[in-house]
């Protein structure tokens, strides 16, 4: 029943993540925000989304959490829901640059480029120093097959030196089937945070899509060394070893090739 879709108790937590254990410290909004950020850095977007919601349960005025939810929904490919949620958040915080950019990104993923541009322009007017706004701007350039995407992404990286920025840029490129450009950004993220497993995983994805099988294998192994519970990395490693062949995967890859909007 659709009304129960919104409830979360039916959803299982991501397999390779430890289930949230009762913490000894006080569980205030900051604690849940920190948990969410940590999960997001591990690529566990479902968990991160849940933690952002918990933080908001305690303090509804946390704009970064509203934005975090929207971004997690986009990562989870729930674009329509992300757009709807960004609209709700914008009713509470009208004109917020991050929320406008989030809505623009959702529209961009739904291929409504004109609307996305309008919102992104608004977001840039509100806050030209937000890395996320520039990231969305860059994604719009990629979606519109314009060559200046690199400048937008570079601006985003200059504004925020966190390794998560190049990593998310890499994910954007991967989403638009451009593994070569994604590779450069993923490598930067790996260089900045070699002790985190998720950048290794994303780098492996880029290398696998570029048919650099040996390097991809190495990246996945590094990822598994840092986090042995990363099921996706294991699966990709098995795929590379030829143990995991399925006609569905082949068909999906073929279709992905046809759908490729920008190379």
């Amino acid at each position, binding site marked *: 029943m659709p009304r129960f879709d919104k409830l979360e108790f039916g959803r299982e937590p991501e397999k390779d993540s430890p289930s949230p254990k009762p913490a000894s410290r006080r569980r205030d909004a900051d604690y849940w925000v920190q948990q969410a950020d940590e999960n997001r850095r591990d690529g566990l977007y479902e968990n991160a989304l849940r933690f952002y919601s918990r933080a908001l349960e305690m303090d509804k*005025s946390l704009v970064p959490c509203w934005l975090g939810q929207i971004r997690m929904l986009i990562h989870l490919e729930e674009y329509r829901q992300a757009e709807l949620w960004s609209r709700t958040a914008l009713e509470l*915080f009208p004109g917020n640059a991050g929320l406008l950019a989030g809505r623009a990104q959702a529209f961009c993923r739904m291929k409504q480029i004109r609307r996305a541009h309008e919102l992104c322009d608004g977001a840039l007017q509100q806050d030209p120093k937000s890395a996320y706004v520039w990231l969305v701007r860059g994604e719009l350039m990629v979606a519109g097959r314009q060559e200046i995407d690199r400048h937008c992404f570079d601006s985003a990286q200059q504004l925020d030196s966190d390794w998560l920025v190049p990593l998310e840029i890499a994910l954007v490129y991967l989403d638009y089937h451009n593994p070569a450009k994604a590779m450069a950004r993923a490598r930067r993220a790996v260089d900045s945070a070699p002790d985190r497993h998720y950048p290794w995983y994303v780098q492996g994805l880029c290398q696998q899509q570029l048919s650099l099988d040996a390097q991809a294998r190495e990246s996945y192994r590094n990822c598994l060394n840092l986090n042995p519970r990363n099921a996706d990395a294991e699966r990709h490693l098995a795929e590379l070893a030829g143990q995991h062949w399925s006609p569905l995967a082949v068909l999906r890859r073929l279709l992905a090739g046809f759908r490729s909007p920008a190379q």
Partner: protein
Amino acid sequence: MQCPSCQFQNMPGVAVCGQCGSRLQLSGVAIAVHPPRAGRWEKRFHRWLPIGRYHALFDQLRAAVSAATPDLEAEIGRGALLRIVVPGWPQIFAGQTARGRLFFALYLATLLGGLLFAGTPVGGILLGLALATHASSILDVVYRGTHDTPSRIVYSAAFLLLVGIAVYLPVTWAVTRVALPRRILQDVPPFAAGDVVLCNQIAYRSGPADVGDVVLYLPPQLRFQRLERYMAYYQFAGERIDRVLARGGQRVEWRQRRLWVDGVPMPWTPLNPDVLPPQLNLTVPAGSLLILPTTGLPQNFSPTAAEWQQLGVVPAGSVLARVYLRYQPLSRFWIIR
């Protein structure tokens, strides 16, 4: 009091930020903080079928409709206008649910009936009724949105033409590529007069027909004459249905009611082997196929061995479609092999 969105310092006690308009007192307000989630199937559907890509096209279409029909749009709404492609949908959209459902149910019933009896007179009538229902649905929308006769005529004609070109023309074209109905006119085993068979026109796009396939083809146009009690002329032309028996360069022998190709016995026979002589030796030239027209001989005409050779050798390009299903009557519904 600092705004959580723009960090502006507001006076204590104010409910809304003076700079950006954000709500400042959210603690007492009942707001859902759990976002809506997509179902598993919805995500899969969108991943496999990227409908979003066509939003720009829909936007353009919407703009074109708005520009072309300002009066209509003002009267009945753009949403209803765009839904004229499905009978009853604009009515349901405009709130006339019962009327819309009636249109849709009528259309569905006549369309399904028409498809079930496709190729027969009854099927033709039912498909015609389905089209009429759709046209009525469109006219209903136009009549509701216009008030003078010239506008009604112009808009009705324009929308009927638009739906015809945009919906029915491509759908008919696509369906007849893979399911072209052909009606059998006379009793010739294994067919009976009134049978409807379905043909696949794209089956041989990539290569010639396979030996053993039952095909719809155009035989060479021939005319034979016989001097019996009077001079009789037998005209041989038009589409025929029969089985491909051999390819170019092969030698074919028909004896003991069995087909031998290059000395090897074959499992298939022509569709109506009774009309063949007891013994027949044929050679198929390169680039041709051997299809003996056993189901399409003129009445009282018994070809000689030389005439069978003339009649049976068909250029490979003359094969029009593969015949794969006897569709009507439903009591004899069967796959043709």
